[in-house]
């Protein structure tokens, strides 16, 4: 019988992990502490695509 503290500690790890996922998810939808994350990412992605994929000659 493994200690109950193991289960509790694993639950804490999962909880912290889910908080990270939630924060990133909220950030991607421009909410929460990471507000602006999606704008940053999409801007950079489109900028990169524009420069390197669509019109490399105009970059």
């Amino acid at each position, binding site marked *: 019988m*493994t200690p109950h*503290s*193991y289960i509790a*500690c694993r639950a*804490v*790890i*999962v909880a912290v*992990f889910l908080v990270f996922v939630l924060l990133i998810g909220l950030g991607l939808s421009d909410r929460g502490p990471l507000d602006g994350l999606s704008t940053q990412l999409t801007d950079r992605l489109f900028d990169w695509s524009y420069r390197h994929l669509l019109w490399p000659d105009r970059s």
Partner: protein
Amino acid sequence: MTSRVSAAGLEFYDWMSYVALGVLIIVAVSLLLALGGAGVILVRSFVTHVNTVTPETYRDERRGTRDLKPGEFPADLAYPAYPRRQLRADAEAIKANYTLVSGELWHWPRDAFLEGRHGPQLLWWMAFPIPLVGLGMQPLLQALLGILVLLMLLAAGIVRVVGSLAFWVVVCVLRTADAVWARSRGAAASCPRCYHVSERPAYTCPGCHRLHRDIRSGRLGAFARRCRCGHLLPATVIRAAWALEARCQRCEEPLRRGAAVLRDVRIPIFGDPNSGKSRFLYAGLNSLYGTAGRSNMEYAFVDAGSQAAAESGFELIRMAQDTVKTTEDLPRALTVRIGAEPTGALVHLFDAAGERFRRPEAHDEMGFLDQGQCFVFVIDPFSVGQLRARLSQTEASVLVAHPAVGDPESTYGEVVTRIRSGGIKGKHQRLAVVVSKADLLERSGADVPNGSDALAEWLYDLGLHNIVLGARRDFAEVRYYAVASVDPSTVGLARDPGAPLRWLLSSRGVRLEERADTVLATAAEGER
């Protein structure tokens, strides 16, 4: 011209919107699959395929780190605290399961579409007509899964750092509490059989009866530990002393309840055969029993052996009968708890047959002399040559006294030499020199002085000057008592057999002061 460009632009934007939609679908599906994969990794790592570090594995790992010193024991068989070892195993499991799931995400579509290992191959092509898109989203899926696993490891790392910090703070506080308590109380775990004294005893698991040698808060648990058998044990000596059975670290004999938490006082009694050691022991304890009762202090014999011995001894003292000759076996400590748990004291009294003190070869077995903090040396005045010569006219009273056999000076010398040859310094040890049978001596017409200094001078004049001079040098403090080993209600305070024990106990922090007015008031109440 303008309208033609606009139409081309519109077509371009229509085309781009389809591409964007496709990309969005791929991202969404990849994200869902990555989240599902992360869930699988967590479930496999924490629920279904847990890699638990067993107590045996942990002990072997610990054993490999350094060699054991003499007297040390391997780590106890209990599950390690989560931040100390299991968290590392869980992080390794996450990485291993990530490799497994990631590989499966690569291999599964290939096996389904190309190898036909997951059902009819054609069905998969009909259900997902664009497998290339599926294969194409693999990099994104793998990247997202990798990010999620990194987040998992980051979460585990945070728990490890914060958890370890909190864990060690708790361990330090609890260990300090254990150590401060033991130091301030003068607590120790002393064995009544082999006389070994350790800072803390071993404790028996109630589930599997396995011994836990070091129950303190530590790598196996801060507040509690889980034994190999699954039983939960408290992880501090202060708590374990009341919840578990304590055993000697050396011979594994059960120790007294409260060992290593209650104040521990060890008093060896030595003297010649027939000098009245056992009688003094029971009469002294009987007197302490009365003192404790008047002071409303708890007074209890904590084991069956001590209880039975004390009951029979008390009865003999109260009935004014002779005590039985002590056997020549090695003595077991007679232990009494004075005061309530957890602030009372365990007082261990060792009474060996006088013959043992006269045989130098038997000294090695008497480890209780090495562990003694206070000593009682019993002198039978009827065995002192000069006094016997004076009392020769009253031979009958000498015979009633059953004079001791032997020379007190040689017994004292042999015992003290044995104690000091073991490297034990006497600077913290007290000695009570007890002149026994004072009532018989007075009855025979001898004048027995009162007071420690007067008694010392009296013994000096009787030819025991080597004892008087040597005791001052050998011990931190010496006092002399003339006692009548009878029920204290029949003799005055001056001959009270409890007085030497009370003085010795007071040096170890056990206050049992007998006040003359209290005794007189109690006696007056009895008379009314």
